[in-house]
C-alpha cells in the first residue's frame, strides 16, 4: 500500500493507504476524504478533483498531459506549478508519502 496525505483547505489532514493501480482521486474517494468531487468519475472531463501537490513532489509525479493541463487552467484558483487533477495521477509505490492540499472549493 502507498501512503498518501490529503490536507483539506481548513488544514485537516487525512493520511490514508491507497492500493497501487488506483488513482489519487480514487484514494480520496475510497477513504472518505471530503473536497474531491470527481463528478465525472475520473474521465478528465470536469476538473473537480483538483489539488495542489506539495512542492517537493512536483517533479516526482509523471507530467500532466495536454488535456489535464488545459482543464487545470480553468480549475478553481490553479497554481501553474502545483496544481494537478488527481484522477490523472496513478498511484505507484514511488508515490509513497505523497502530500496534496485541497483547494477551498472545486470549480
Amino acid at each position, binding site marked *: 500500500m502507498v501512503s498518501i496525505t490529503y490536507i483539506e483547505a481548513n488544514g485537516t489532514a487525512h493520511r490514508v493507504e491507497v492500493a497501487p493501480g*488506483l488513482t489519487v482521486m480514487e484514494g480520496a474517494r475510497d477513504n472518505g476524504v471530503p473536497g474531491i468531487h470527481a463528478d465525472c*468519475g475520473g474521465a478528465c472531463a470536469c476538473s473537480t478533483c483538483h489539488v495542489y501537490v506539495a512542492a517537493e513532489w512536483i517533479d516526482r509525479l509523471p507530467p500532466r498531459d495536454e488535456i489535464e493541463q488545459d482543464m487545470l487552467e480553468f480549475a478553481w484558483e490553479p497554481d501553474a506549478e502545483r496544481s494537478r487533477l488527481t484522477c490523472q495521477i496513478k498511484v505507484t509505490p514511488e508515490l509513497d508519502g505523497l502530500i496534496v492540499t485541497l483547494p477551498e472549493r472545486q470549480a
Partner: protein
Amino acid sequence: MTEMLETTAPIVVIGAGQAGLAAASKLRDLGHAGPLTLVGDEPEPPYQRPPLSKAYLLGEMARERLFLRPSAFYAERDLTLLTGRNATEIRRDERQVMLSDGSALPYQHLLLATGARPRLLPGPDLQGVLVMRSLADADRLAEAVRPGLRLLVIGGGYIGLEAAATAVKLGLQVTLVEAAPRILGRVAAVETSDYFRELHRAHGVDLREGVGLAHLTEAAGRVTGAVLTDGSHLPADLVVVGIGVLPNIELAQAAGLTCDNGISVDAYCRSSDPAIFAAGDCASFPWRNQRIRLESVGNAIDQAEVAATNMLGESCEYQAKPWFWSDQFDVKLQIAGLCGRHDRVVTRAGAGAGRSHWYFHGDRLEAVDAMNDPRVFMVAKRVLEGDRPVDAAFIADPANDLRALLAS
C-alpha cells in the same frame, strides 16, 4: 427563507444510482441524523455508469473501481442501503413505501431517483441482442464480444456511438444504423454529427443513416442479423440496441403524482406531493420557460443535492447547468449547455486536433460542443453559467484568446 432544518425525520431514497447516492450523502453532510434508507433494484451498491460503455467494457477498469463509495461508507454514515429490491407502491396518506421484499418504510420525505431504462425493441427477447445501461448489461456484453464478430448497433446516439467505438477497439466488425437522417440528430447540430460520422467511418465503422431496423432475424432464439428498412439484410452475431431511454415513472404515476416526460417537479425538485421529491434522469423540471429532463451525471448530482437540501426545509432553486461528455476513439467530447433551439453554429479551430462548435440563438450562446478542446469547454461552461454575451465573430477567429470572454 430558512426554516429550522428537519434533521431527524425519516427519509427514504428510491433509486441507488448517481442521484440517489448524491442525495443521501448530501443529507448526511447537511446534518440529517434521522433514519435514511437508500433502495436500489440492482444487486450492486451505487456505481458509475459512464465507464461501462468505455473503460470497463475495454477491460481497462476493474469492477471495484466503478463503485461510487467504498462499502464501509454506508455504515460510517449510518445509511441503510437496501439493494436488489424495488419499491412497489407509495402509500401517500400513510407516508410509507412498500418494497418488493414485503417490508414497508415510513418516510417524512421521499426522494424518487428511479432513473431511466433503455427502450427495447418490440418482439421477443433474442440471445445476442443487448442493451447498455447497467453493470449487468455491460457484463453480458463483455462476455459476448470477441474479435472478428459482427456487431450491429441500432441507434446513433451517444450510447450507440460509444458502444461502436469500444467494439472497434475490441476488434469487432461494426455496423451502426440510425433511422433518422443523421446520427446525434436529437442532441447535436449538423456540424457535430458530421464530425462524428467522419470519425467513426475513419475507424472502419459501417455507419448508415436514414435507414432503420425493419426486424431482426433469428435462428433458434438467437439473433442472426437484421432486415433494414431499405430491404437489405445484414448478418450480425451481436446486436446492441441504443435507441434511447424511458424515465422510470410508473411508481410515481401509480401514486397519482403528476408526470410529464418524467416525474414533474418544480424549481425546488418537489413533485405534485410536497413530501415527495424527484431528481436525476427520472425527473422533468422547469428550465427557461420549458420543461426538460436531462440524462447526465452532472444533472443527477446537482439536482439530487438541491432536493436533499430542500428536504431539510430549505427552499433552494435548482439552477441547471447542463454539461455532458463522451469519449469515442481518440476524441474527448465535452458539451456545455443544451442543444435545442439554435439558429446558427460557429466552428472554431482549436490548438492541434481540437475543434469546437458554438450554438447561437440570435446573439445568445446556447451550447458548445468541444472536441479535444478542454479549454473551450471550460470557458464555455463559465460563459453559459454567467450568461455572458459572446461575439460570434470573435469566437470564429482561432487567434483570439477565449479568456477575454471571462473578463468582467
